[in-house]
């Protein structure tokens, strides 16, 4: 099943921007840390170490700031200038996560914006693309993560 086209209602972005950004950031880094070493190779992502990363979910008004440290991904609490900013809507992030859309396609149609150190963005994109869910799903089966399993099952 394809994700239908949708954008969250405009007021949500205004409200979302006023809400604390820490809880969704914590959720994001928790997910990333779960994937780190298991799914995402730490040595490949090494260039991200100490870099200020910003993920903007434009229609939800969310701006998630985080970095990679020797102890894994951590939220950033200040709003210093990011080294890499990626912006897209909720729908398009989901479509990317499920491999329904190609990032270049979204970029050409101006639905995905990458600002700052482009090489870091390419590294993130290509590292995520290289995750072989066929082999990951067997390992995930051992974990008690029903939601993640469903998501990964859809992705491949």
């Amino acid at each position: 099943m394809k994700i239908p086209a949708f954008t969250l209602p405009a007021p949500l972005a205004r409200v979302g921007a006023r809400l604390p950004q820490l809880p969704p950031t914590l959720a994001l880094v928790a997910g990333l840390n779960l994937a780190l070493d298991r799914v995402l190779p730490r040595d490949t992502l090494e260039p991200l170490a100490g870099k200020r990363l910003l993920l903007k979910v434009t229609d939800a008004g969310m701006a998630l700031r985080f970095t990679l440290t020797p102890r894994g991904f951590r939220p950033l609490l200040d709003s210093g200038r990011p080294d890499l900013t990626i912006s897209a809507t909720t729908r398009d992030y989901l479509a990317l996560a499920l491999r329904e859309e190609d990032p270049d396609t979204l970029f050409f149609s101006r639905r995905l914006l990458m600002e700052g150190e482009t090489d870091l963005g390419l590294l993130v994109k290509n590292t995520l693309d290289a995750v072989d869910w066929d082999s990951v799903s067997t390992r995930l089966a051992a974990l008690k993560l029903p939601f993640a399993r469903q998501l990964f099952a859809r992705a491949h």
Partner: protein
Amino acid sequence: MTSPRPIELVCPAGSLPALKTAIDHGADCVYLGFKDATNARNFSGLNFDDKAMAEGIRYAHDRGRKVLLALNTYPQTDNWQRWTGAVDRAATFGIDAVILADPGLMAYARKTHPDLRLHLSVQGSATSYDAINFYYEHFGISRAVLPRVLSLAQVEQVIANTPVEIEVFGFGGLCVMVEGRCALSAYATGESPNCDGACSPGKHVRWEQTPKGMETRLNGILIDRFADGERAGYPTLCKGRFEVGDETYYAIEEPTSLNTLELLPELARIGVRAIKIEGRQRSPAYVAQVTQVWRAAIDRVLAGGQPFRIEQAWMAELNKVSEGQSHTLGAYYRPWK
């Protein structure tokens, strides 16, 4: 090594999932590269390490498909061993063919691994049957990938005058097509696809949303500015908009994608042996979408019977993933020669 199919569909893979996706969606061959400057898509995080390469080849061969390795950049005297080492690794892995551009490397491959099948890369920029036959006589190449500068009639003439199989590009990004000899990226960044394996390497590219629009800079040089909603292209100098006289426009070429779907019956008739899909830098989603369409189209042509009919949905799918605002038949369809 002959294929039972009269026309092979050759699809790109920048990662193991892309390779599996291509094969699952009907590719006859997948082409890929190592994680270094020995191939012309040397981007961060892209391409295959030894483990992924071994698994990818196993996955393809188990399903009766082929894996081709692009070693299509030009070694220099101080890094020659890296390229010959890559040829040796390819032979050890059981790659079905290596796609080479450099004649020195071709001589090395032929001498060191006489059984290794050689394809001449588009980066070799051989556009005449004389050039292709030269590579055939000296290095025994089995196939040549034609640069995207020939008209259909010229492609036909090449095929009629060479024993070498001819592969043409069917779909994907276009550039100025001075393959293997383009210096535009090097002019702006000091790095070229020919020697460093990347046109507009990521470390030199900056995008920024400004009040005037989204700006693209290459090593600090402003090469384009897109208004809101305007479709964007890759950040290459050839596709930039520049001030010429008192006009700002695409002075070299517009960002566009090649799409030769409607020429498929003609390509089959003149004896094209393989159709190549561009895009090793793209994600598995692109590979799935494009491979699926081209598999269906080639199968329809090979089935013969009724006149070839293109499904609207095929074109819609291909247009969606295209660069820029349009697609083109490129040089294949032009009245002049």
